[in-house]
């Protein structure tokens, strides 16, 4: 049994390889499609855009070599996790990314947990009260939140909680200059995390609530629910044990698929809240047209998504014993 799981894991990891290769190819392709190259931009920024200087930069970056050579060099570097250098910041891309990744991961993971937990609770509550006012209220709210742009919601939350009520910080990850350590530091981060995480999560709360409600209603139509009732279980026990575990499967699947979308959302939310994560890095890279950095971020985020899918597969196996990892 354990060996089968291990085999499955190895197989899944091997499946990632073509995905990685495809992303590399796409990166390279996009880089070549860009009008002008880094040398042009950099030379322009440095204020001496002479032909010789630009050519010199090209040579330095290896952009004067034949295309296929550039491709293999790029690939070769990736094998050692070398995503190239941000020519504007004079720093390896991977260093810049790894510096920001933890903040983004904290934000994303908190949001996923929040979104799934709230979505499940609300979805179950709505399904158990199908057709009542509470059910309609939850459904309407979900529909409205589902239509709200996350970045705007973030701004409005700042208006409400930071400006009008003045109870939560409007941005940043830590109180600047407080020099907190240990638990106090963690608490401070958590305090700053509330609004951005809530902003990022709410859209997904809406999705999972709707999905969970539909999924629960479907499970309620299955025979084993009647069995559970015939056994004398209470409706609460049935909802939270027999129905929930079965109804959770589609939600888990979607949460895995959407982990990548969450990363996109975090770009916006991090911009709104000045959260020092990958999203901000994207924004800075955008402003400076630092394509190497942008592509590096695209690469790393895809890797994060692929890993998230892997984790979801494993969770799925835990939730549903019928799934045998072949």
């Amino acid at each position, binding site marked *: 049994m354990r060996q089968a799981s291990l085999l499955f894991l190895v197989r899944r990891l091997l499946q990632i390889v*073509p*995905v990685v290769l*495809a*992303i590399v190819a*796409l990166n390279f392709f*996009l*880089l070549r*499609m*860009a*009008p002008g190259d880094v040398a042009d931009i950099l030379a322009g920024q440095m204020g001496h855009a002479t032909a010789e200087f630009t050519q010199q930069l090209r040579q330095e970056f290896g952009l004067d070599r034949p295309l296929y050579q550039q491709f293999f060099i790029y690939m070769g570097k990736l094998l050692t996790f070398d995503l190239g250098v941000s020519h504007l910041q004079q720093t390896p891309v991977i260093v810049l990314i790894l510096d920001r990744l933890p903040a983004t991961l904290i934000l994303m993971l908190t949001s996923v947990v929040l979104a799934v937990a709230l979505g499940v609770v609300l979805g179950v509550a709505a399904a158990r009260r*199908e*057709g009542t006012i509470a059910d309609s209220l939850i459904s309407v709210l979900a*529909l*409205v939140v*589902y*239509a*709200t*742009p*996350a*970045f*705007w*919601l973030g*701004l*409005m939350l*700042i*208006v409400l909680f930071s*400006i009008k009520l003045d109870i939560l910080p409007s941005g940043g990850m830590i109180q600047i200059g407080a020099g907190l350590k240990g638990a106090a530091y963690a608490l401070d981060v958590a305090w700053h995390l509330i609004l951005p995480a809530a902003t990022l999560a709410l859209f997904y709360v809406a999705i999972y609530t709707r999905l969970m409600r*539909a999924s629960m*209603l479907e499970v309620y139509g299955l025979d084993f629910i009647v069995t559970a009732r015939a056994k004398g279980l209470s409706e609460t026990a049935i909802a939270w044990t027999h129905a929930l575990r079965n109804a959770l499967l589609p939600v888990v699947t979607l949460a895995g*698929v959407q982990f*990548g*979308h969450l*990363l*996109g*959302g975090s*770009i*916006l939310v991090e*911009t*709104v809240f000045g959260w020092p994560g990958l999203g901000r890095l*994207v*924004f800075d*890279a*955008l*402003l400076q*047209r630092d*394509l190497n950095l*942008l*592509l590096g*971020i*695209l690469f790393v*985020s*895809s890797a994060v*998504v*692929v890993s998230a*899918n892997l984790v979801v597969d494993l969770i799925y196996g835990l939730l549903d014993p019928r799934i045998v990892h072949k």
Partner: protein
Amino acid sequence: MRGLSTLWMRFRRNRGAVAGAVTLGLVVAAALVGPLLYPVDPFDMVGQPAQPPSASFLLGTDVAGRDILAGILNGARISLLIGVLASLAATVVGVAFGALAGYYGGWVDDVLMRVTEFFLTIPSFVLAVVVVAIFQPSVVTVTAAIAVVSWPSVARLARGEFIAQRGRDYVQGCRAIGMPDWEIILLQIMPNALPPVIVVSSLMVATAILTESGLSFLGLGDPNLVSWGYMIGVARTVLRTSWWMSAIPGAMILVTVLAINLVGEGLNDALNPKLRKR
């Protein structure tokens, strides 16, 4: 025709869908005739900056003294235009992929679906940001970027429909009489496979509008056009003093997207009455 009228009957019974349709109609009308009836250039500085809504400026002015109402009306055009165009493009590409993969199966299916899955793996908003950044923001690149990240879900759906249809008797019959594949795909199967695709495409307009607003909020919109997301991005700098300046365009996005979603769900329920929960 009979089918359409029953469809309309079912759609009309759904109160949310009707409310959505009416709201959407108003937004579309505002986009079409608004700038004609209210011919103020949204880039012109027409008054003191950051005025709250008043009689002279119904929705106030922004940080550069531009008329927000003019921006809202012109922004409606951009949002709807990009939303619809991007969904159309994504639908065409997605249906083409899905139809070929579903109809032919085998290695064609394998290859096309690998490509589709690959695009589903890349975080869509990140890809859209990168694409727009590389090709410089304009209506065309923004539309293309949104289409590039939206088509895979259509492809999956269309593939499923084509797989379901290709084994049916009428398709076998068409093959038996030697009808060419393209004719079977386009004229025979397509009409049957299209209804669910239409629902997803119409819902995709809403997502596209959200994506567009996010892009232009980041400054990745067409610099020559005012869009709602751009207006929020500009207003953000004065959030502390003039929160309504960000609130108004955001509320417009919300209302428009909500209306499209309601219409899309109404369509879905009307097309699949059996799937409706009591």
